[in-house]
């Protein structure tokens, strides 16, 4: 008995129609979903329970949660979120499932600790995470580094930072900077050079794209801060010599204080504002800068991460 032709035709047409309309429905659903922030719900919150449920395949599950953590942060970052409530729990679950996933501790140090909108603003949690990482990986210098980093950058607790770096420096194969930083912390904490060394180390010691981009942005910002400080000093010097503020950099050049027109790390000329203030032309391109922004300037939503 051959299949009936009318049924075949109707079923075939219906199939195509449903395929098309379900595609539209899906598209519509996805559009409405992406306007709101990603799910703020973790269906299972307890790391221990998740570990139990993993039936021993915790390595893979850790990788999955790690991916979720990165996606979560990246998506919210792009939306300019000021709150990342799930980042901490996601990183904790990841590291309970796989305590040796070093990159998770790095991520915590770089994105869990800093204040929003650059991070989740939870430095204490980040510290706990790092300490947990050290307990489970006592021979991994990177985690000591992450700990010291958090104390230095966010908590401004320089003695604890020095402590962490010192502990890390004792680990075999540790990055040579650790010992240097431990030693110099006491005198040079808060200085540009220390910060630069830290960000360079952060950049070099990871392969994670987000962490590298973050470090690179910070280094650029440090460069700008340094340039602006120096240029403002020169402007003051000019004022002392001539009695009035310079109106542009050519005047400084003419007096021999500058050898060439100053250019920011992205290649644009610095601007000389009234009363000797120096500004960058496009402050939006430099998240993290502390100097060189016009008065009343509010930084936009940072969009420098590859995950953005």
């Amino acid at each position, binding site marked *: 008995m051959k299949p009936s032709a009318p049924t075949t035709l109707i079923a075939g047409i219906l199939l195509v129609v449903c395929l098309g309309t379900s595609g539209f429905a899906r598209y519509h659903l996805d559009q409405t979903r992406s306007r709101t922030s990603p799910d703020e719900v973790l269906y299972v919150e307890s790391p221990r329970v998740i570990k*139990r449920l993993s*039936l*021993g*395949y*915790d*390595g*893979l599950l*850790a*990788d999955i949660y*790690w*991916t979720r953590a*990165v996606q979560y942060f990246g998506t919210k970052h792009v939306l300019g979120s000021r709150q990342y409530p799930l980042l901490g729990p996601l990183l904790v679950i990841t590291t309970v499932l*796989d305590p*040796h*996933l070093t*990159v998770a501790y790095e991520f915590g140090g770089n994105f869990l600790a800093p204040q929003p909108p650059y991070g989740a603003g939870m430095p204490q949690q980040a510290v706990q995470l790092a300490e947990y990482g050290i307990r489970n990986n006592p021979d991994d210098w990177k985690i000591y580094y992450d700990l010291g980093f958090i104390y230095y950058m966010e908590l401004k607790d320089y003695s604890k930072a020095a402590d962490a770096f010192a502990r890390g420096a004792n680990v075999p194969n540790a990055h040579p900077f650790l010992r240097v930083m431990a030693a110099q912390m006491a005198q040079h904490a808060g200085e540009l050079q220390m910060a630069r060394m830290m960000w360079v180390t952060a950049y070099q010691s*990871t*392969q*994670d*794209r987000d962490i590298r981009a973050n470090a690179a942005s910070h280094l650029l910002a440090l460069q700008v801060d340094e340039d602006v400080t120096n240029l403002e000093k020169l402007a003051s010097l000019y004022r002392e010599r001539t009695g009035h503020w310079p109106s542009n950099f050519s005047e400084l050049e003419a007096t021999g204080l500058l050898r060439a027109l100053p250019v920011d790390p992205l290649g644009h000329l610095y601007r000389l504002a009234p009363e000797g203030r120096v500004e960058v032309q496009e402050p939006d391109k430099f998240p993290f800068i502390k100097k060189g922004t016009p008065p009343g300037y509010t930084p936009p939503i940072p969009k420098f991460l590859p995950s953005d």
Partner: protein
Amino acid sequence: MSTRIVHIASNTFREAVRDRVLYNLIAFALLMSGAAVLVGQISIGIERLVVVNLGLTAVSLFGVVIAIFIGIGLVSKEIEKRTLYTVLSRPVRRWEFIAGKFFGLAGTLVVNTAFMAVGVFAALLYVSRAFHRADAWILVALYFIVLQFLMITAIALLFSSFSSPLLSAVFAFSLFVVGSFAEDLRGFAALARGVSHWLATGAVYLVPNFASLNVISSVAHEQPIAKQFVVSSSLYALLYTGMVLCGAVLIFERRNLK
């Protein structure tokens, strides 16, 4: 005697192959290819880790599913289809039949795992561009996975010798899950008092301890596995498998084939 077991084993292998079980390798190959290509986009720096975790987990899960799915039918299908009658009317002892079926399925799984190992190493080569010394530990992890297969195959065969396929699947899968919780069971036994303590401790020893045979995470982090551990784990798995097979033989020897 031994040739009969070999013949039954190779017939069982042939049945599995003609049942197209090896097609699962296609799904596996697609999975590994997709993972190898995508992992670079999702998690830089931990590509090798993810490929090893994913690859070995897939080998383990695919294999357990195959072991249970085919294992539960090893005896019951023959009884239901009555193909067993003409076999047992020959000079084949019942225990030889059980042994042959076991080796047939175990052999199928070993062959399957070998093909999958090639897939895992291929994906690894793709993301790492070269092999490292530490990659050799992956072979050890695969060996441990095969030990798990032996245990679960024996368990499925045991249930098959007296239970319907559906019930066998439920029991076998449940034992797999409980066996993966074995370490938690131990923790519970340590906390419990009185009767619960003894029951839990008994369970810890009776239940197949799959948790301790899971070295995927260690191997993914390039940590070595102690030789002593390999030897004692092998002994445990083989003895446990032997125990279960004896159970299967005891039950099957007494079974009336209606």
